[in-house]
């Protein structure tokens, strides 16, 4: 299984029917395609839509029905639209149950850097800082390493997105949570040992005696 598929499928299992969920760009977007049977959630696009559906068929795109990346989407029956003030009121006000975001670095206390690489990549934070500060639960979806270098570090070297700690990071190698601000291995990836996870992780990782493998 592709790393992205492992990550998306594992995160999809965190979603429960009725939740309001905001998915970031990249691997997080894939989560929508891996919802378990019978789970129905509300997807929010921060440009002002709840009930975001799939990509429209060829020739069926509507010019004013788009997601936060500006791509044409569909709206599911029961969808609603609103302005940006309400959209971010939903986000900052704790009404979004789960946000899934990409990550550049996560530190061992659960702080996230995902919006800029100074002097190299300066796209602007968009809605990322509000999402991390305000969503009830923050899940980071990212590959465990970048060109072999660990992304789960003792301390982020890149600028932080928020001082608020994330709840979970899911990679193709591991699920890591941050109880009491300490990175803790919760599950390993398919066919991966705890030792392989720690070898690919710079952060000090709490490894309980029995770590189950991800159920996908």
């Amino acid at each position, binding site marked *: 299984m592709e790393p992205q598929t492992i990550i998306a499928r594992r995160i999809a299992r965190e979603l429960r029917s009725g939740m309001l969920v905001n998915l970031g760009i990249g691997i997080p977007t894939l989560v929508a395609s891996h919802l378990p049977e019978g789970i129905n959630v509300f997807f929010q*696009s*921060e*440009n*002002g*839509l709840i009930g975001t559906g799939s990509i429209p068929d060829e020739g069926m795109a*509507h*010019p*004013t*029905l*788009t*997601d*936060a*990346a*500006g791509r044409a989407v569909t*709206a599911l029956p029961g969808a609603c*639209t*609103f*302005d*940006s*003030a309400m*959209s*971010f009121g939903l*986000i*900052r006000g704790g009404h979004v149950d789960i946000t899934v975001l990409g990550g550049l670095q996560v530190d061992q206390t659960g702080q996230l850097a995902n919006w800029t690489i100074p002097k190299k990549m*300066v*796209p*602007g*934070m*968009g*809605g*990322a*800082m*509000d999402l991390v*500060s*305000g969503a009830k639960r923050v899940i980071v979806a990212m590959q465990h390493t970048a060109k072999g270098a660990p992304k789960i570090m003792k301390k982020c070297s890149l*600028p*932080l*997105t*928020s*001082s*608020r700690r994330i709840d979970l990071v899911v990679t193709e190698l591991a699920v890591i949570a941050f109880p009491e601000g300490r990175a803790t291995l919760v599950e390993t990836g398919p066919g991966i040992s705890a030792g392989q996870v720690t070898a690919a992780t710079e952060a000090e990782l709490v490894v309980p005696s029995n770590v189950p493998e991800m159920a996908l």
Partner: protein
Amino acid sequence: MQTLSVEQSVEMIPDGASLMIGGFMAVGTPERVIDEIVRQGKRELTVIANDTAMPGKGIGKLVGAKLLRKALVSHIGLNPETQRQMMAGDLEVELVPQGTLVERIRAGGYGLGGILTPTGIGTTVEDGKQRIDVDGTSYLLELPLRADFALVQAFLADYLGNLSYALTARNFNPVMAMAGKTVIASADNIVPIGVISPDHVVTPAPLVDYLVANA
């Protein structure tokens, strides 16, 4: 409310003006007004908007024509030209978290002296700002934004200037219509008074100073 041609509406905008421009990745941006700004070559503009769209679309056209002095936006990631001009020092870009940006505009339009938000605490966004604690939680004081003009795009406008919006083209438009000293609206459809039900009017007519006639 007065009806103007697109040419007349843009003639009112002086060089150096500050503009709030509705839209999210050019969806809900008054494209005809933008085209006319480019045609008339207005210069040294300050733009307050969600993003600078992409090259050749919406606000991206103003960036491409080098008409901006400053952009106050949340995202420039899909417009490499904005990033290039910023790196070269030709364009000042102030990046603001999206939820903070819309609340600063709302504060400007709603007569508030600022807003308190947890977003940005402990990040570079906090630099130079006042931190205020309320009931044990820290917030940043973010100041209101106003602009000389708000350029908004509606789906429907009636002859009085009542506006309603379509789907995700609403985004920043209604909030900006409160915060521009002069509000110039254009609409996909201009309809008789009464066609927009009172419950469906999002921007009330008294806020709209000028309605751009459709071609």
